[in-house]
């Protein structure tokens, strides 16, 4: 094993969302990583792989980085696990970062897990807090993460291998603008032969474009989940929304079921809501969903399972059949003909 004292600096993987913008979560992580880098007196370095990567650099420079390392190439337009993993692994091997943080998104989780394997180091996923401590070793990163379906919080360290790697859920940290003087920019040449890839894409992929949603501005959000059992029931949410001036959103499940368009997803891979009231119906409360609702002032959850994790984050818990209650609410709010 190589000497861990050779490893230095804090790296953040900058995910480019839909190949148009820097992922918010990456900016949030940069702000936290800035604090960590200051505490250990090392550099904060952003890693960017994209098509026309230069266009994203000004945004990244606004969030406290000392340096940006980037690769720009047509093959990097979309996240590709083998290409990204190999290219970034080469960077790690060359520069030896001490800490490497990733947004907890589909691409971020996949990439971090693969890199951790190649580096034979530890990876802590869905971290909710990070702090440095000398309790278990010099300036060691302590990560808090939920386990047992969010029932407990565990503190995990990675004492003897490097980099110390984490994925961080969107909304965990606050982004703060901060501009360092003389940000160093380094372009690394792209050199990956994509001809050896094992997966062949047959035919043109169908793009599932996301229309923009107004969820983040809504005062009253009605969220539906798999527990509504059918598209017909899910559709009733739109009626309730119409009668109450609410806005419908939901979990990933109704999207997969074909009940709801993708842009109404709430959670880590969708929108974050800031409503006065969030009414959740037939939603289990998976952490990926919950992170998108905790900024709501009041949360009411309806679920037939008294042990559903959603009740842990709700102000008011109604154990019962969501469809039955929805029907009653419609009766109450329905506009008389």
């Amino acid at each position: 094993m190589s000497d861990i004292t050779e490893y230095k600096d804090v790296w953040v993987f900058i995910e480019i969302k839909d190949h148009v913008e820097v992922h918010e979560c990456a900016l949030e992580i940069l702000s936290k990583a800035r604090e960590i880098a200051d505490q250990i007196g090392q550099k904060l370095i952003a890693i960017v792989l994209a098509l026309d990567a230069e266009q994203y650099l000004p945004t990244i420079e606004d969030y406290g980085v000392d340096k940006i390392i980037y690769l720009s190439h047509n093959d990097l337009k979309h996240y590709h696990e083998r290409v990204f993993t190999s290219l970034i692994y080469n960077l790690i091997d060359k520069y030896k970062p001490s800490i490497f943080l990733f947004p907890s998104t589909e691409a971020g989780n996949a990439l971090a897990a693969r890199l951790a394997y190649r580096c034979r180091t530890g990876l802590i996923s869905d971290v909710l807090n990070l702090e440095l401590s000398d309790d278990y070793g010099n300036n060691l990163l302590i990560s808090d993460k939920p386990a047992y379906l969010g029932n407990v919080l565990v503190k995990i360290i990675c004492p003897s291998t490097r980099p110390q790697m984490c994925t961080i859920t969107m909304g965990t940290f606050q982004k703060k603008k901060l501009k360092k003087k003389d940000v160093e920019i380094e372009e690394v040449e792209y050199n990956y032969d994509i001809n050896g890839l094992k997966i062949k894409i047959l035919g043109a992929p169908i793009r599932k474009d996301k229309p923009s949603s107004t969820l983040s501005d809504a005062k009253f959000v009605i969220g539906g989940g798999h527990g509504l059992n059918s598209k017909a029931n899910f559709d009733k949410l739109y009626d309730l929304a119409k009668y109450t001036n609410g806005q419908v959103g939901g979990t990933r499940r109704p999207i997969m079921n074909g009940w709801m368009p993708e842009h109404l997803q709430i959670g880590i891979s969708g929108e974050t809501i800031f409503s006065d009231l969030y009414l959740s119906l037939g939603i289990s409360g998976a952490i990926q969903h919950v992170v998108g609702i905790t900024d709501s002032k009041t949360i009411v959850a309806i679920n037939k399972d008294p042990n559903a994790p959603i009740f842990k984050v709700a102000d008011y818990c109604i154990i019962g059949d969501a469809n039955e209650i929805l029907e009653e609410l419609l009766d109450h709010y329905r506009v008389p003909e």
Partner: protein
Amino acid sequence: MLKIFVLIKQVPYLHNLEIDRRTGTLIREGVENIINPDDLYALELGLSLKEQYDGEITAMTMGPPQADFALRECLAMGVDHAILISDPIFAYSDTLQTTLVLKEAFDNIKDYDIIITGSQTSDSSTGQMPYQLSEALDIPLITDIFTMEIKDHDFYCHRNFGHESQHIQTGLPILVRTQRHFNEPRHISLKGIKRAFEKEIEMYNFDTFNCPDYLDGCNQSPTRLVKTEKIILKRKNEVIDGTTKDKIERLIHIMQEHGIERIWTGMSQDE
């Protein structure tokens, strides 16, 4: 013949989870163990592939000796073989260590076409293992599949990938990660239960593999858990009791308190 492997894990049933306040660890005594719920979808996919393509299916787990019971359940569901990888030296393995052990196992098995996993375990919930095993075995990992077909040792499927839906082709072997509710896991039949206890469970340990020293789970796992806390909740968590009518009245009251009233969208003024 298609050689299918399904990776499962035995996990504690998380109903009344308790933490030992002094040691900060989970109290496992008296806690019932079950097959990790997400793995049931993986098993179901494996069993249906076996039926469709005349394959042979093996359930495999790494865990303590009592994980044997989870494998019996798999046998009862209809898997052909079961492998338990168990050795005190593998205890406390984190994801990386587990992956390294599984890699040894598959390097020994050599003959595999499809390895299927669930999406996450309910205990440690890292979700990293499928990615790492894909790296370790250098085979593609396919996630979020909605249709699939195997033809002449090639695998074809439609899958969601980022914001795209793709039709792809790849050679075997591959690793497939199933998503929750992807299928309807079957129930165990009485005949199945009988069969489960007639079969042998193959045991692998450190020596079976001729393991390298770095497979010491306790001493070589890069991550270390230093503390466990029950999550402290800042929400009210008030349970609204009573009849359905009571619940609805209270709910409407809460909605009112948040300024939600019926709005008039019926007829427009000009009509």
